[in-house]
């Protein structure tokens, strides 16, 4: 990396407003710019894709109003003075999968999550695609982990009782003349990525498999190993398994500061007291740079990128049964896999996401432009999709570095931290494999200070709440005989019973909120969006907890639903 070359380029684009410096294998970009898009452009200019020399953004941006991280209202001493072997920061897919793998060992593990539930940020706000890994460059961490992760999915989802399906992916082309080039490209890809089942299928074959895609597709790349999973369902399942094996999960718990001495984290401040960890694992998503800074180990920067997905009615789910997209001739330019049309594991259709740079790490507001962008694009794959079939939409914020690669390594300056940062697509796919590596790193570090033994009680098996509407009549009947509450349907759209709701309330990580129950077993996820069932779910939670209705919240402590008795 030639710093002079970078500075020449920056000079050309931004004059003397910004400047890059190289020291300690970090490129720091400094200066002042008025627009965030320029800040991103400047840092991208300074960055080399997949490089391990990272860009740190120190540009002052006039447009940016840096809101402090949202910290839960809760303040207590529940964790004050706690000594733990491992403190994991972040209850997304990365943090919980690491917690679960580490729970194989006899360790005290504490995972803290600032939100009221797990998977409330990027891990719960993505499209759930388990990528085949056919579009990444060798040498990148993404490439290193993707096939390993993809191949682990069947086993992991079986162990954790999470629905997963290898639905297959079709990348569709409408120009017959491209077939030769794409055939060669696919051949090269197979070799490059170590995939055996990628193939080119004809337009007729595509039509036979997915009759509702655009008529004039001439051929498609088929990747049968592509899968679909419920991303928050998997996150919760991982966390529950970790908890069953002894890990402690603390929700509504935010890391606010750290004391670092002699290149070592001594203690970590939270809104629930000071924790003394031997090792810290940084899985803080969009805040992973902030956590690295607290640990005096900031050697990368995150530039948040939001994306919006739309969920369509199950009736539209019947239109197609895989993952499909159309290739624009814009190879490598855009920072999203391009999004797609996806048949979800719950049989809805999901469209999206788009990709928009933003400095707002926690702004998950939806915007109508995003919906339009996504639909305009996906109609090119499947013309029959209609905005009228939308039942909901949501925005998530990705956490990429400027090198667009993952950071999975021990601290560079601070020794007792391990970073699992810069995680963006295909981070859901890679998570199971990454977790195994971080487990190794952490155990290796801990072994330097003490003996680490296997956890004799570890079980990789987690049983989810039974899903009655997917059972045969006989099985369902049998369960209802054992527990009549399974026969009381509360959510008509998704056919969820009172018994299932009570099971979710009794699960290893109880989140007794309307959204907590919704994420676990789906009441309110259907076409009426909780119109009929939300009062009933609220009531069941209140009865279970023995509290007045007004105490039951949507999600966070302050997301009040009702205010107490009428006159």
């Amino acid at each position, binding site marked *: 990396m030639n710093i002079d070359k970078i500075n020449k380029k920056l000079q050309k684009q931004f004059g003397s407003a910004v400047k890059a410096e190289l020291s300690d294998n970090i490129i720091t970009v400094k200066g002042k710019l008025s627009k965030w898009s320029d800040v991103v452009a400047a840092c991208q200019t300074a960055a080399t894709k997949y490089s391990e020399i990272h860009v740190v953004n120190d540009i002052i941006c006039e447009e940016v109003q840096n809101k402090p991280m*949202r910290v839960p209202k809760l303040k207590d001493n529940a964790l004050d003075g706690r000594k733990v072997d491992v403190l994991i920061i972040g209850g997304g897919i990365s943090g919980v999968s690491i917690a679960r793998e580490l729970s194989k060992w006899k360790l005290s593990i504490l995972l803290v999550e600032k939100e009221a539930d797990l998977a409330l940020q990027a891990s719960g706000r993505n499209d759930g695609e388990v990528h085949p890994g056919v579009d990444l460059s060798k040498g990148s961490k993404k490439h290193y982990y993707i096939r390993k992760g993809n191949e682990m999915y069947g086993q992991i989802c079986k162990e954790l009782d999470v629905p997963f399906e290898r639905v297959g992916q079709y990348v569709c082309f409408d120009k017959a003349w491209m077939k030769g080039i794409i055939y060669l490209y696919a051949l090269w890809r197979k070799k490059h990525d170590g995939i055996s089942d990628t193939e080119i299928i004809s337009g007729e074959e595509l039509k036979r498999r997915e009759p509702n895609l655009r008529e004039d597709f001439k051929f498609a790349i088929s990747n049968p190993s592509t899968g679909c999973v419920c991303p928050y369902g998997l996150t919760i399942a991982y966390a529950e398994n970790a908890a069953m094996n002894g890990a402690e999960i603390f929700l509504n718990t935010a890391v606010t500061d750290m004391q670092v001495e002699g290149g070592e984290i001594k203690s970590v401040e939270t809104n629930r007291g000071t924790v003394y960890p031997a090792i810290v694992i940084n899985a803080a998503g969009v805040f992973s740079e902030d956590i690295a800074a607290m640990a005096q180990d900031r050697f990368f920067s995150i530039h948040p990128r939001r994306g919006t997905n739309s969920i369509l009615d199950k*009736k539209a789910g019947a239109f197609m049964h895989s993952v499909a997209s159309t290739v624009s001739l814009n190879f490598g330019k855009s920072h999203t896999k391009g999004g797609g049309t996806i048949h979800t594991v719950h049989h809805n259709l999901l469209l999206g996401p788009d990709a928009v740079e933003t400095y707002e790490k926690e702004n*998950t*507001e*939806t*915007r*109508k432009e995003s*919906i339009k962008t996504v639909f305009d694009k996906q109609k090119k794959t499947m013309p029959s999709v209609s*905005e009228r079939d*939308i*039942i*909901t*939409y*949501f925005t998530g914020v990705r956490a990429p570095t400027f090198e667009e690669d993952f950071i999975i390594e021990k601290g560079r300056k601070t020794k007792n931290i391990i970073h699992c940062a810069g995680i963006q697509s295909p981070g859901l796919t890679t998570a199971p494999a990454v977790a195994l590596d971080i487990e190794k790193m952490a155990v290796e570090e801990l072994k330097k200070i003490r003996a680490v033994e296997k956890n004799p009680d570890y079980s990789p098996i987690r049983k989810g709440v039974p899903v009655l*509407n997917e059972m045969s*009549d*006989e099985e*369902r*009947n049998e369960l*209802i*005989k054992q527990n*009549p*509450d399974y*026969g*009381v*349907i509360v959510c*008509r759209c998704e*056919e969820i019973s009172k018994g299932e709701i009570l099971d979710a309330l009794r699960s290893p990580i109880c989140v007794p909120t309307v959204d907590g129950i919704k994420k676990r077993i789906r009441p309110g996820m259907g*076409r*009426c*969006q*909780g*119109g*009929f069932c*939300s*009062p009933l779910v*609220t*009531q069941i939670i209140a009865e279970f907890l023995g509290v007045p*209705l*007004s105490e039951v*919240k*949507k*999600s*966070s*402590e*302050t*997301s*009040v*639903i*009702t*205010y*107490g*008795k*009428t*006159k």
Partner: protein
Amino acid sequence: MKSYDVVVIGGGPAGLAAAISAKQNGASVLLVEREARLGGILKQCIHDGFGLVRFKEKLSGPEYAERFTELFEEEKIDSLTLTFVTRIEKEKDGFRVVLVNRNGVEAVFTKALVLATGCRERTAKQVMIHGTRPSGVFTAGTAQHFTNLLGVMPAKKCVILGSGDIGLIMARRLTLEGAEVLGVYEAKSTPSGLTRNIHQCLNDYNIPLHLSHTVTRVFGEDRLTAVEISRVDERMTPIEGTETIIECDALILSVGLIPENELAEALSVKLDPRTKGPAVNGQLMTSIDGIFSCGNALHVNDLVDYVSESGEIAGKNAALYCKAQRKEIDISISDKLLYAVPQKLDLNKDNSKTTLYFRSRDVLNGCTFTIKKDGEPVFSKKYAFLRPPEMENLLIDFSSMSLNENSKIELDIEVKNNA
């Protein structure tokens, strides 16, 4: 497997009326209701105004329901409450209805089915409201459930989007409970609810109604803190630059009702895209032999009296149902009408007392509704005005029109001086 002549699905006003009328016409009847009590949504409608057409009395929702539940009990009709229909399978000469309740999974056989499954409310996302996802955004029916059935307040200071009847009723209800209702916003240029509700629920309480305005965005990370209101053009598209922010802690949505026909669709019943309910003939039988539809599942009604009436028609015809060749012709409508029910006539049936329901597409003053046979008027009725929120119903003798398979029936509205 138990066997019935008629199984009615849904124990609201349509289902109750259908079950009673089927029983009174000699059928063995089972009514299936997913809630613990019969009465449907009437249970939470504690305001009055129900039954003016039918009983010439102002009843509350529960009182109106009680008139039917009492009769239902007198008739000793079988019913299963807290029971959910998971699927229906077509069989030779009937249907196998699979039910789930506290006793387990059970199936019953029936010769005829009456679908009285009601409707659901359109949601915030279906009207493209953007922004955050705070608590405090309710559909009017959900807010009504919290207020009237659970006795808890869902709002302190709220904005209501949509001037549908439930929205208007909730504006008054929440005001009476001490909440501040800042205004009702309606994207259309005319109100969606009944005129009487505009007077009794808004005007009487000084609640402003803002036509041609909609909510475009919501704010608040936890509970709702504000909404963004925009003016809309004649195509109901928000006009940029007209946004204003209103601080409030609740947004109540009354933006339309959608007939619930998931069971019907699973049985391949053909739906009318205009009503979003099944296309039916004068006997309220759908495209599938032996399946009847009524109430708000058939089309969204503004008065419960008509819901009961259609239930009675469907129930009676389900009881009298026996498989026969149909000879159906379409009842088509001109662009002056929003929709009409029934959409078909079976010429093999007695159509001398056919109840015809229709709505005009726009507000029309001084107009004439006509039925044309092969382009020639065969029936007409003058109206001082027709408004889309107010459904009209007529008793028509189609049998006397000497119709045959080639006859073309069209409904039209002629406007003389639309001011």
